[in-house]
């Protein structure tokens, strides 16, 4: 072991100890110590699933999903839109680039390919499960969609981008799926508003259950199991959008040099 290694290790330990000591002395400001929940947190916990106070409740046992898609749904919608814009930017950068089949050597060995073939359905199943339990247990549309996108990544690494293209997993289709998911979320957000306008009662954007002055609500139970009302639809569409979006981003960033060089030089542009 070199002396420099020892010095680096000692410096890291000294930094950690000094920072801890500074924090202990209150060097980064007072650390709030609370023995009870704040009123806001307590309200969310008490009202997230509360059939006795429906006008304040999301009727979903999973608090995080209820907050993310009901209490602050508009915020989440714009977060999803920002991610969509990021993916659109990546696609725009490689506009005109196409997968040229036959460039690669056909992926990894038979052992890895067989393992991937066994695992891919399991990964998709796990993603669907995380999505479909999103309003009951921790998880949700984003987590489920990201899990499903792992199957695409695995197929891309193991089989090569050619195989994905041969099986119809192309940029245009994924972009259409991503857009469908986002439109689905937007339609769910205004669904009760449209119904309210049609039948002549009050309704709100991102309304889930009955609210003050509005009797409209998404069905909160399916054969006795809570569905979270609109949370079910948000999770499904979000999983759809995220799985397609992340798969698209991975495919676009995995394009090979030969496939992007011509377009980036401008030779492919008329």
């Amino acid at each position, binding site marked *: 072991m070199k002396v420099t290694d020892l010095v680096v290790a000692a410096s890291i330990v000294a930094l950690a100890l000094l920072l801890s000591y500074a924090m202990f002395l209150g060097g980064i400001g007072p650390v709030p110590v609370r023995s009870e929940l704040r009123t806001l947190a307590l309200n969310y916990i008490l009202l997230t699933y509360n059939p006795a106070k429906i006008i304040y409740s999301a009727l979903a046992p999973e608090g995080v999903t209820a907050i993310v898609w009901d209490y602050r749904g508009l915020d989440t919608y714009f977060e999803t839109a920002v991610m969509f814009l990021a993916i659109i930017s990546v696609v725009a950068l490689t506009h005109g680039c196409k997968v040229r089949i036959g460039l690669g050597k056909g992926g*990894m*060995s038979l*052992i*890895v390919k067989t*393992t991937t073939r066994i*695992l891919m359905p*399991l990964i998709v199943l796990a993603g669907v499960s995380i999505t479909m339990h999103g309003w009951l247990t921790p998880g949700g549309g984003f987590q489920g969609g990201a899990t499903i996108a792992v199957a695409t990544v695995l197929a891309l690494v193991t089989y090569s981008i050619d195989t994905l293209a041969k099986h119809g997993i192309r940029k245009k289709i994924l972009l259409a799926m991503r857009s469908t998911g986002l439109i689905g979320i937007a339609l769910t957000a205004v669904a009760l508003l449209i119904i309210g306008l049609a039948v002549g009662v009050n309704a709100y954007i991102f309304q889930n259950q009955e609210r003050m002055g509005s009797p409209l609500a998404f069905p909160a139970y399916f054969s006795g199991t809570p569905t979270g009302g609109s949370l079910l639809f948000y999770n499904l569409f979000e999983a759809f959008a995220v799985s397609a979006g992340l798969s698209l981003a991975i495919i676009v960033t995995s394009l090979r040099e030969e496939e992007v060089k011509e377009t980036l030089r401008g030779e492919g542009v008329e």
Partner: protein
Amino acid sequence: MLWETVCSVAGLILVAIGAFCDIAAAIGINRFPNFFVRLHAATVGAIGGAVVPAFGAGLIALGSPELGNYRFFVAGVSFTTGLMIMILGQAGAHALARATLKAKAAPLEPCVHNALRRREEVRGE
């Protein structure tokens, strides 16, 4: 209940085997001479040190009546996780070893047996 005790004891034995495999793998990773043999030690840690205790945890959950019906959830997740690591561990190790050998990224000495080179010789590559 007898079967619950049997499950718990069998589970604890599997966890103990897992702990031994993990220690053996850790010593192997530190002491073995080159990348390929160290990879062998790593798979001992992945299969013996992760899959076996995961199955053990599932059995312990089945033998824990105080968990109620949740013990079946815990056991199911443990067995599924164990199974997935068992499928993934060997494929990952194989992919790493093959890629390293092809790219000549790690020294191959000391080498007792090289099945891939032998196959290439038979094929005349």
